[in-house]
């Protein structure tokens, strides 16, 4: 089943590749139709996914046995939401790419390959397989930025590639080290995550390996000070590229930290909570501060990503139930809201061919529906109660207050800063009177554009009002991550950091 989730988009890419190049009008609709298949499968899996700890729908096939490599897949509460998010964003990103008229076929092929790779990363339970997917993703994304991007696209694509490839290269050394250590301790070389989690690593070795993995993921997130590739990549990428970059690719980093750094190196993770927390908080404040002064709408959203992803990292390394749950759900939230914001920026760019905030003004009179969606997504991004962003940030802040109180307080200012840069941008773009001639004649959103945004908006509202549809499935898995850390280190989650603490506490007081 899970294999099909990876194969469907890959086969879809082959199908598109087989269609004649001349039938340009065919490629995009075909790609959208083909990418709906994995979405259906992912939704079905999400529906039947049991809210218990451990991996489900697992598959295991040996790949090359002497090296202990296997095609080993499975999902748990951490990866399941990400898979659904990925499969949801791909058709939307494709459908938003009608402005791409040059080499459409290749564009659709790369996007589908990208989807296969991203799903593969979330499903892999074998470190070799994981690395394979993690690296393979770079190529289609590199082409998407490099071919269909704006003026400085080649520079941005190269920067994106070199940054991420450098990080993952050191992780490869770390993966080799883990597999060989397993060979030395147990007699068999293996890359299976579940086996490698039982290794006895010395403190020094574990810290080095933690650093190698963390570097790869921190570049991907991106964590301050490794974030400089992100604004370039985002500004230059086409809309679909930005949506997938922000919606899914960055999450590979936060997902990796949660799954691999916490899982494989619990001791080093506990030692690193302050370092990672401080970097995350710097990212939150710095990203927000830089976003305020951006003259370019897309860059503003890009820097807001740096800020928002800081929350996810903070929640991850808070090592409490709330923090981890908040991190996972915030992964989804950020994908929805920022994905939608990039779509919105793309829509106005197609009309005006500029992203300069100063070029706009008074748009809400001309484009009321557009302005409505924009404001809605901004509110979600700021974390207005009732919308999804609130749930995630609240959980992260509550969760991190238990272990890193000072950082939680500073991080909370990020919420205020978000309100400043987003609302100020809204004010400059949408309020007032439209003074430029070009802006007076802009057409409002078409049915097609509304239908792209509507599902995202509906999910934003749904997750804001009833987050338990996700949290119920996430919680058992995040709890088991904490169990693993408590079992293998001296670290104990301070009360009331665990899920059980809150529930049991009143009873405990009673006797």
């Amino acid at each position, binding site marked *: 089943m899970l294999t099909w989730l990876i194969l469907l988009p890959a086969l879809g890419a082959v199908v598109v590749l087989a269609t004649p190049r001349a039938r340009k009008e065919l490629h995009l609709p075909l790609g959208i139709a083909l990418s709906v298949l994995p979405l259906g499968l992912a939704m079905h899996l999400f529906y039947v996914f049991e809210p218990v700890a451990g991996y489900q729908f697992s598959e295991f096939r040996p*790949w*090359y*046995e*002497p*090296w202990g490599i296997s095609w080993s897949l499975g999902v748990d509460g951490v990866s399941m939401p990400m898979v659904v998010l990925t499969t949801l964003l791909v058709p939307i990103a494709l459908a938003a790419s009608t402005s791409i008229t040059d080499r459409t076929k290749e564009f659709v092929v790369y996007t589908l390959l990208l989807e296969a790779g991203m799903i593969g990363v979330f499903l892999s339970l074998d470190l*070799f397989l994981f*690395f*394979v*997917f993690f*690296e*393979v993703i770079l*190529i289609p994304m*590199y*082409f998407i930025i*490099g*071919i269909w991007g704006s003026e400085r*696209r*080649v520079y941005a*694509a*190269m920067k994106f*590639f*070199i940054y991420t*490839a*450098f990080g993952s*290269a*050191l992780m*490869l*050394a770390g993966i*080799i*080290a883990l*597999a*060989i250590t397993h*060979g030395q301790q147990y007699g068999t*070389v293996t890359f299976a995550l579940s086996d490698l989690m039982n290794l006895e690593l010395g403190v020094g070795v574990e810290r080095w390996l933690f650093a190698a993995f963390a570097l790869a993921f921190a570049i991907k997130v991106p964590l301050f000070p490794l974030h400089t590739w992100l604004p370039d990549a985002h500004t230059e990428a086409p809309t679909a590229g930005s949506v997938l970059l922000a919606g899914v690719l960055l999450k590979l980093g936060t997902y990796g930290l949660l799954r691999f750094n916490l899982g494989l190196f619990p001791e080093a993770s506990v030692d690193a909570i302050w370092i990672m927390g401080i970097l995350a908080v710097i990212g939150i404040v710095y990203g927000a501060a830089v976003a305020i002064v951006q003259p370019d709408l897309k860059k503003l959203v890009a820097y807001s990503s740096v800020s928002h992803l800081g929350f996810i990292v903070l929640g991850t390394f808070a090592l409490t139930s709330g923090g981890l749950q908040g991190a996972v759900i915030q992964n989804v939230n950020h994908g929805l809201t920022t994905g939608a914001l990039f779509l919105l920026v793309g829509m106005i760019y197609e009309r005006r061919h500029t992203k300069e905030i100063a070029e706009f003004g008074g748009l809400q009179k001309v484009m009321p529906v557009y302005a409505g969606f924009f404001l809605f997504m901004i509110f979600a991004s700021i974390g207005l109660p009732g919308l999804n962003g609130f749930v995630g940030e609240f959980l992260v802040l509550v969760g991190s207050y238990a272990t890193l109180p000072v950082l939680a307080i500073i991080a909370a200012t990020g919420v205020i800063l978000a309100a400043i840069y987003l609302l100020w941008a809204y004010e400059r773009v949408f309020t007032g009177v439209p003074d430029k001639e070009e802006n007076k004649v802009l057409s409002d959103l078409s049915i097609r554009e509304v239908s792209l945004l509507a599902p995202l908006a509906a999910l934003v509202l749904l997750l804001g009002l009833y987050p338990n549809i996700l949290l119920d499935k996430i919680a058992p898995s995040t709890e088991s991550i904490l169990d693993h850390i408590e079992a293998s280190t001296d670290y104990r989650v301070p009360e009331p950091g665990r899920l059980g603490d809150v529930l049991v506490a009143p009873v405990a007081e009673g006797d």
Partner: protein
Amino acid sequence: MVIPEISWIAIAPELFLAVGAAAVLLVEVQWKPPPRTLGLIAGAAVVLASVFSVVQWFEVTDAVAAGSPGDLIVFSGLVVMDGFAVFGRFALLAVTGFGLLAGWRYIESLGRRGAEAGALILLATAGFSIMVASNNLVMMFLGLEVGSIALYVLAGMSRERARSDEAAIKYFLLGSFASAIFVYGVALLYAGTGQFEVLEMRNFLSGFVVLSPTVILIGLGFVVVGLGFKVSAAPFHSWAPDVYQGAPAGVVGYMAAVAKIAGFVAIARILLTGLGALDADWLPVVAAIATLSMVVGSVLALVQNDVRRMLAYSGVAHAGFIMTGVVGGSTDGVLFYLVVYALQLLGAFAVVAAVSGADTSESTLDTYRGLARRSPVLAGSFTVLLLGMAGLPFTSGFVAKFGVFAQAWSNGFEWLVVVAVVASVIAFAFYLRIIVVMYMDESDVIGIEVPGTIRWVLVAAVGTTVLWGLLPGSLLSLAADALPL
């Protein structure tokens, strides 16, 4: 006088190649047939040689299964027919077969002299083929020279072009210098151990404690330098960019690939088998060469503006990666890497030959501008091959790199692996540079015709790159069985 027993099967592939080379020349002189006939003769020689190396493979398996590996040492210890040799030979023959196809348009364009080029290719392969199967170092030197001299001439086949002449002279002067150093090293090894034969050296070193191994170590150093030149490892690489750039595009892929295979098989045989007992002494040296090759190759490739020079420097880097496998101390990683890289290199130069025409050296990055529009097949194949060389997952290059890195790591050379992964990333940058030019730049030049022979080479090179990237087990298990005695 005792006449040594002649084991025809052990040298059958070389015999067929040598006879084929002679036949090509004689048939040309006598009947002046169309080039196609000569091509068929050369092809038949390669096919027959390959058939017999398959037969050899089964002989080896039988002998090892029967517990009599001693039978595989033939010609009084001059030649050894072990799995390692047979695997290396088969790789050479595969490269030769596809090399003939890739260079066919060039060979045809030479007219009457085409026969010489075909015969030289067969002779070069015969020489290198006996080199990989040599147990005796003097025999190894003979094979090396037969192969190298044929390659010097091949490099200068396009006499009319000054660059080709320059390449041939440079290759010849530096190459014969390196051969001399190799011979001197062999002499010193003989002085130190009293043996010419690799297996006897091993027995000597494991049987006796050498109190002052200075002479052996100097000899070892010279041997490594001589062979390091042949595989273009830094700092002995300076000839490579000029030769790769100047030699005829049709055959340069073949030249580079066979020299790498033969050189590394010889290095692995001498170091891992013969002098394995002294590994504490040579491991740091080889690790240093590996480091230097990877760094120099990757960094200098970045600043090249000519695709051939870029491939030459990437070859230096690859020599470093394969050296990392030697440091890892096992032969299967080295063999897998060699086969994978040799085919990719051949395919890459086939693309270069198709883009720049059979006989010119015009291969600046500019000529690849917008190649994706001019010939999607060429651009697509080149992309896969470049990504394979870069070591992207799902290509054979990744499995190859992974294998040698893992072995080096488990042999205690963690730092070397870290250097190697960083070098791989730097290398990504220049492979991507070519891809950028092909895909992201516009061009108005109209399409390129891809000759049928080159298509076959591309199918094989791209096919194996992807196949062994997805299912590496098929080749890896063979490489793991191909052990030296």
